[in-house]
Protein backbone atom coordinates (compact mmCIF):
# COMPACT_ATOMS: atom_id res chain seq x y z
CA UNK A 1 0.00 0.00 0.00
CA UNK A 2 2.70 2.47 0.97
CA UNK A 3 4.74 1.64 -2.14
CA UNK A 4 1.67 2.35 -4.28
CA UNK A 5 1.13 5.66 -2.53
CA UNK A 6 4.81 6.58 -2.99
CA UNK A 7 4.58 5.81 -6.72
CA UNK A 8 1.34 7.76 -6.98
CA UNK A 9 2.61 10.87 -5.24
CA UNK A 10 5.92 10.79 -7.13
CA UNK A 11 4.17 10.60 -10.48
CA UNK A 12 1.61 13.19 -9.42
CA UNK A 13 4.43 15.57 -8.49
CA UNK A 14 6.00 15.05 -11.93
CA UNK A 15 2.66 15.65 -13.66
CA UNK A 16 1.91 18.85 -11.73
CA UNK A 17 5.47 20.12 -12.07
CA UNK A 18 5.49 19.63 -15.86
CA UNK A 19 2.08 21.33 -16.13
CA UNK A 20 3.33 24.35 -14.14
CA UNK A 21 6.53 24.49 -16.21
CA UNK A 22 4.39 24.40 -19.36
CA UNK A 23 2.45 27.41 -18.15
CA UNK A 24 5.49 29.40 -17.04
CA UNK A 25 8.05 28.84 -19.80
CA UNK A 26 8.35 31.82 -22.13
CA UNK A 27 9.32 29.71 -25.13
CA UNK A 28 6.44 27.85 -26.79
CA UNK A 29 8.73 25.00 -27.86
CA UNK A 30 9.66 24.34 -24.23
CA UNK A 31 5.96 24.46 -23.34
CA UNK A 32 5.23 21.80 -25.96
CA UNK A 33 8.04 19.56 -24.72
CA UNK A 34 6.88 19.90 -21.09
CA UNK A 35 3.38 18.99 -22.26
CA UNK A 36 4.79 15.84 -23.93
CA UNK A 37 6.35 14.89 -20.59
CA UNK A 38 3.02 15.53 -18.87
CA UNK A 39 1.19 13.31 -21.35
CA UNK A 40 3.75 10.54 -20.83
CA UNK A 41 3.26 10.75 -17.05
CA UNK A 42 -0.50 10.54 -17.46
CA UNK A 43 0.03 7.54 -19.76
CA UNK A 44 1.93 5.84 -16.92
CA UNK A 45 -1.08 6.58 -14.69
CA UNK A 46 -3.31 4.92 -17.28
CA UNK A 47 -1.04 1.87 -17.23
CA UNK A 48 -1.15 1.71 -13.44
CA UNK A 49 -4.96 2.01 -13.55
CA UNK A 50 -5.21 -1.10 -15.75
CA UNK A 51 -5.86 0.73 -19.02
CA UNK A 52 -2.98 -0.60 -21.12
CA UNK A 53 -4.58 0.02 -24.51
CA UNK A 54 -5.59 3.59 -23.68
CA UNK A 55 -2.08 4.24 -22.35
CA UNK A 56 -0.58 3.23 -25.68
CA UNK A 57 -3.16 5.28 -27.59
CA UNK A 58 -2.23 8.22 -25.36
CA UNK A 59 1.46 7.86 -26.19
CA UNK A 60 1.02 7.38 -29.93
CA UNK A 61 -1.82 9.81 -30.62
CA UNK A 62 -1.37 12.49 -27.96
CA UNK A 63 2.34 12.53 -27.16
CA UNK A 64 3.20 11.47 -30.71
CA UNK A 65 0.90 12.79 -33.40
CA UNK A 66 -0.79 15.76 -31.74
CA UNK A 67 2.33 17.19 -30.15
CA UNK A 68 4.31 16.79 -33.37
CA UNK A 69 1.55 18.81 -35.04
CA UNK A 70 1.90 21.49 -32.35
CA UNK A 71 5.69 21.65 -32.69
CA UNK A 72 5.37 21.75 -36.45
CA UNK A 73 3.01 24.72 -36.34
CA UNK A 74 5.14 26.56 -33.75
CA UNK A 75 8.22 26.21 -35.93
CA UNK A 76 6.30 26.93 -39.14
CA UNK A 77 5.02 30.22 -37.75
CA UNK A 78 8.25 31.04 -35.90
CA UNK A 79 6.02 31.76 -32.94
CA UNK A 80 8.27 30.72 -30.08
CA UNK A 81 8.29 34.06 -28.29
CA UNK A 82 5.36 36.18 -29.28
CA UNK A 83 4.27 37.13 -25.80
CA UNK A 84 3.46 40.79 -25.37
CA UNK A 85 2.44 42.54 -22.23
CA UNK A 86 -1.25 41.94 -21.53
CA UNK A 87 -3.42 44.90 -22.45
CA UNK A 88 -5.39 44.42 -19.21
CA UNK A 89 -2.95 44.68 -16.27
CA UNK A 90 -5.39 43.20 -13.74
CA UNK A 91 -6.00 40.10 -15.84
CA UNK A 92 -3.30 37.91 -14.31
CA UNK A 93 -4.29 38.29 -10.64
CA UNK A 94 -7.99 37.95 -11.46
CA UNK A 95 -7.28 34.80 -13.48
CA UNK A 96 -5.29 33.34 -10.59
CA UNK A 97 -8.08 34.17 -8.13
CA UNK A 98 -10.73 32.62 -10.39
CA UNK A 99 -8.62 29.48 -10.78
CA UNK A 100 -8.12 29.21 -7.02
CA UNK A 101 -11.89 29.53 -6.53
CA UNK A 102 -12.50 26.85 -9.18
CA UNK A 103 -10.02 24.49 -7.57
CA UNK A 104 -11.47 25.20 -4.13
CA UNK A 105 -14.94 24.28 -5.37
CA UNK A 106 -13.63 21.09 -6.97
CA UNK A 107 -11.85 20.15 -3.74
CA UNK A 108 -14.99 21.00 -1.74
CA UNK A 109 -17.12 18.81 -4.01
CA UNK A 110 -14.62 15.98 -3.56
CA UNK A 111 -14.40 16.33 0.21
CA UNK A 112 -18.18 16.71 0.70
CA UNK A 113 -18.74 13.33 -0.92
CA UNK A 114 -18.99 11.31 2.28
CA UNK A 115 -20.19 8.16 0.55
CA UNK A 116 -17.07 6.08 0.29
CA UNK A 117 -16.92 4.27 -3.05
CA UNK A 118 -15.38 1.30 -1.29
CA UNK A 119 -12.16 -0.45 -2.05
CA UNK A 120 -10.96 -0.54 -5.64
CA UNK A 121 -12.19 -3.89 -6.97
CA UNK A 122 -9.79 -6.48 -8.22
CA UNK A 123 -9.86 -6.95 -11.98
CA UNK A 124 -8.21 -9.57 -14.11
CA UNK A 125 -5.18 -9.02 -16.31
CA UNK A 126 -7.48 -8.82 -19.34
CA UNK A 127 -9.21 -5.64 -18.11
CA UNK A 128 -8.22 -2.78 -20.37
CA UNK A 129 -6.41 -4.97 -22.89
CA UNK A 130 -6.95 -4.22 -26.60
CA UNK A 131 -9.21 -7.27 -26.89
CA UNK A 132 -11.44 -6.22 -24.00
CA UNK A 133 -11.68 -2.57 -25.10
CA UNK A 134 -12.23 -3.60 -28.72
CA UNK A 135 -15.07 -5.89 -27.76
CA UNK A 136 -16.93 -3.03 -26.07
CA UNK A 137 -15.93 -0.54 -28.78
CA UNK A 138 -17.20 -2.62 -31.68
CA UNK A 139 -20.12 -4.03 -29.69
CA UNK A 140 -22.20 -1.39 -28.00
CA UNK A 141 -20.32 1.66 -29.30
CA UNK A 142 -20.17 0.86 -33.00
CA UNK A 143 -22.27 3.86 -34.10
CA UNK A 144 -20.27 6.45 -32.08
CA UNK A 145 -17.11 4.88 -33.47
CA UNK A 146 -18.32 5.41 -37.04
CA UNK A 147 -19.43 8.96 -36.22
CA UNK A 148 -15.93 9.64 -34.85
CA UNK A 149 -14.41 8.46 -38.11
CA UNK A 150 -16.65 10.83 -40.07
CA UNK A 151 -15.73 13.63 -37.64
CA UNK A 152 -12.03 12.99 -38.28
CA UNK A 153 -12.67 13.10 -42.05
CA UNK A 154 -14.55 16.39 -41.73
CA UNK A 155 -11.76 17.83 -39.57
CA UNK A 156 -9.17 16.80 -42.15
CA UNK A 157 -11.12 18.43 -44.98
CA UNK A 158 -11.70 21.52 -42.82
CA UNK A 159 -8.02 21.87 -41.99
CA UNK A 160 -7.10 21.65 -45.68
CA UNK A 161 -9.76 24.20 -46.67
CA UNK A 162 -8.72 26.64 -43.91
CA UNK A 163 -5.03 26.62 -44.74
CA UNK A 164 -5.31 26.40 -48.51
CA UNK A 165 -3.82 29.30 -50.39
CA UNK A 166 -6.63 31.15 -52.09
CA UNK A 167 -5.19 31.53 -55.57
CA UNK A 168 -8.20 33.22 -57.15
CA UNK A 169 -8.00 36.10 -54.66
CA UNK A 170 -4.24 36.49 -54.87
CA UNK A 171 -4.26 36.53 -58.66
CA UNK A 172 -6.37 39.65 -58.69
Amino acid at each position, binding site marked *: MTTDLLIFFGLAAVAIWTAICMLLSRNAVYSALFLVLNFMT*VAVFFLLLQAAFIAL*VQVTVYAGA*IMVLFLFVIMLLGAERVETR*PSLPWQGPVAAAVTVILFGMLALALSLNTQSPGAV*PLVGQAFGSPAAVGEVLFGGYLLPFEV*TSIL*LLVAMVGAIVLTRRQRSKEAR
Partner: protein
Amino acid sequence: MNVPTGYVVGLSAVLFALGVLGVLVRRNAIVMFMSVELMLNAANLAFIAFARQRAEPSGQVFVFFIIGVAAAEVAVGLALIVAIFKTKHSIDVDQVSGLRG
Protein backbone atom coordinates in the same frame (compact mmCIF):
# COMPACT_ATOMS: atom_id res chain seq x y z
CA MET B 1 -1.78 0.39 -8.21
CA ASN B 2 -3.97 0.27 -5.14
CA VAL B 3 -4.65 3.95 -4.50
CA PRO B 4 -8.05 5.39 -3.50
CA THR B 5 -9.92 6.70 -6.54
CA GLY B 6 -10.40 10.04 -4.79
CA TYR B 7 -6.66 10.74 -4.95
CA VAL B 8 -6.57 10.22 -8.72
CA VAL B 9 -9.65 12.40 -9.18
CA GLY B 10 -7.98 15.05 -7.00
CA LEU B 11 -4.91 15.01 -9.23
CA SER B 12 -7.22 15.32 -12.22
CA ALA B 13 -8.82 18.39 -10.60
CA VAL B 14 -5.39 19.97 -10.04
CA LEU B 15 -4.38 19.41 -13.67
CA PHE B 16 -7.73 20.80 -14.86
CA ALA B 17 -7.33 23.94 -12.75
CA LEU B 18 -3.81 24.43 -14.12
CA GLY B 19 -5.22 24.16 -17.65
CA VAL B 20 -7.85 26.80 -16.86
CA LEU B 21 -5.12 29.05 -15.46
CA GLY B 22 -3.11 28.60 -18.65
CA VAL B 23 -6.01 29.59 -20.87
CA LEU B 24 -6.73 32.67 -18.75
CA VAL B 25 -3.15 33.90 -18.25
CA ARG B 26 -1.19 33.19 -21.43
CA ARG B 27 -1.59 35.35 -24.52
CA ASN B 28 0.10 33.04 -27.01
CA ALA B 29 -2.71 31.25 -28.88
CA ILE B 30 -0.72 28.03 -29.26
CA VAL B 31 0.08 27.82 -25.54
CA MET B 32 -3.59 28.52 -24.74
CA PHE B 33 -4.50 25.67 -27.05
CA MET B 34 -2.01 23.39 -25.28
CA SER B 35 -3.67 24.29 -21.98
CA VAL B 36 -6.99 23.14 -23.43
CA GLU B 37 -5.31 19.82 -24.23
CA LEU B 38 -4.15 19.67 -20.61
CA MET B 39 -7.76 20.05 -19.46
CA LEU B 40 -8.95 17.32 -21.84
CA ASN B 41 -6.22 15.06 -20.49
CA ALA B 42 -7.28 15.74 -16.90
CA ALA B 43 -10.83 14.70 -17.81
CA ASN B 44 -9.44 11.52 -19.39
CA LEU B 45 -7.59 10.71 -16.18
CA ALA B 46 -10.82 11.04 -14.17
CA PHE B 47 -12.62 8.79 -16.68
CA ILE B 48 -9.93 6.10 -16.39
CA ALA B 49 -10.00 6.30 -12.58
CA PHE B 50 -13.78 5.84 -12.52
CA ALA B 51 -13.57 2.98 -15.03
CA ARG B 52 -11.09 1.28 -12.72
CA GLN B 53 -13.28 1.90 -9.67
CA ARG B 54 -16.35 0.38 -11.29
CA ALA B 55 -14.42 -2.31 -13.24
CA GLU B 56 -16.30 -1.11 -16.32
CA PRO B 57 -14.52 -0.93 -19.70
CA SER B 58 -17.03 1.61 -21.10
CA GLY B 59 -15.10 4.39 -19.38
CA GLN B 60 -11.98 3.46 -21.32
CA VAL B 61 -13.96 3.47 -24.57
CA PHE B 62 -15.09 7.00 -23.72
CA VAL B 63 -11.48 8.08 -23.32
CA PHE B 64 -10.76 6.57 -26.72
CA PHE B 65 -13.49 8.74 -28.24
CA ILE B 66 -12.25 11.82 -26.41
CA ILE B 67 -8.74 11.28 -27.80
CA GLY B 68 -10.20 10.92 -31.30
CA VAL B 69 -12.26 14.10 -30.98
CA ALA B 70 -9.25 15.93 -29.52
CA ALA B 71 -7.21 14.96 -32.58
CA ALA B 72 -9.89 16.43 -34.85
CA GLU B 73 -10.09 19.54 -32.67
CA VAL B 74 -6.31 20.06 -32.81
CA ALA B 75 -6.27 19.76 -36.60
CA VAL B 76 -8.99 22.39 -37.05
CA GLY B 77 -7.71 24.64 -34.26
CA LEU B 78 -4.15 24.74 -35.58
CA ALA B 79 -5.49 25.40 -39.07
CA LEU B 80 -7.42 28.35 -37.64
CA ILE B 81 -4.29 29.63 -35.89
CA VAL B 82 -2.34 29.39 -39.15
CA ALA B 83 -5.13 31.26 -40.95
CA ILE B 84 -5.13 34.00 -38.27
CA PHE B 85 -1.34 34.23 -38.52
CA LYS B 86 -1.60 34.75 -42.27
CA THR B 87 -3.87 37.77 -41.88
CA LYS B 88 -2.55 39.30 -38.62
CA HIS B 89 1.11 38.13 -38.75
CA SER B 90 0.81 37.38 -35.03
CA ILE B 91 -0.76 34.72 -32.85
CA ASP B 92 -1.07 36.98 -29.84
CA VAL B 93 -4.75 36.78 -28.93
CA ASP B 94 -4.79 40.46 -27.93
CA GLN B 95 -4.14 41.33 -31.58
CA VAL B 96 -7.29 39.52 -32.70
CA SER B 97 -9.67 42.34 -31.89
CA GLY B 98 -11.35 42.87 -35.25
CA LEU B 99 -14.84 42.46 -33.78
CA ARG B 100 -14.30 44.96 -30.96
CA GLY B 101 -17.32 47.27 -30.68
